[in-house]
């Protein structure tokens, strides 16, 4: 899976939780889940659980700590997939 495919899958995952449609439509690697997409911080855990289920990986606490934007999420997913 290349980076663009990972981002596309990630977009599908975050879509139900976003509160800013324009930021979602113009999503880039720099997009922040909370500041830009306005995802509620309690819903960020749903995003993390959905990522775990979709990619069949486990996001440990140190990874979860960095899970604030698209770039970090993609990095974490790619690292965890490579470890499998």
């Amino acid at each position: 899976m290349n980076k663009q495919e990972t981002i596309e899958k990630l977009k599908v995952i975050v879509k139900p939780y976003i509160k800013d449609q324009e930021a979602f439509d113009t999503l880039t690697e720099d997009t922040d889940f909370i500041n830009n997409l306005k995802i509620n911080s309690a819903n960020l855990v749903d995003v993390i659980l959905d990522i775990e289920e979709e990619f069949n990986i486990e996001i440990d606490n140190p990874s979860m700590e960095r899970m604030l934007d698209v770039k970090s999420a993609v990095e974490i997913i790619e690292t965890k997939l490579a470890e499998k």
Partner: protein
Amino acid sequence: MIGNDIVDLALARKESNWKRNRFLDKIFTKEEQWLITESGNPEIMVWNLWSRKEAAYKIYNRQTGIRGYFPIQIVCLYESSTFGTVSINGNTYYTQTTISKDMIHTISVTKREYFNRIKFLNHKAVIVKINGIPFLIENQNTAAKPVSISHHGRFCERITL
């Protein structure tokens, strides 16, 4: 310093399924999960503890400049449904929580005596954001005062010392 966090219970019910598999494990320590399980009203305990964590994190974020998603490292010491302390990486914060039928609101402070000095701001208060952090401008001659804003669903609260 102060922080605050509001949970609109109707919106929380709609947006979050805290009974979801592994949801509690990602957010709450074993002791906190025990409080939730043993509580007569687990849902209220979930959002009570969550609002304490959020309110304390807001101070921590301001003090340290550290931003991250680490709810499990934000540890609640529960004294009562109203009072408790929260520790984050060696820093301790005091919390005061109000629960009503529709919402849960927690105020966090760095010193207990600050609870007596909390001011609730009305819509007329002039608030500016500096590097994304809100400050109250009272008049031209005084320094900007840190403000904590929390907004969720039907409720919004803006407080300062």
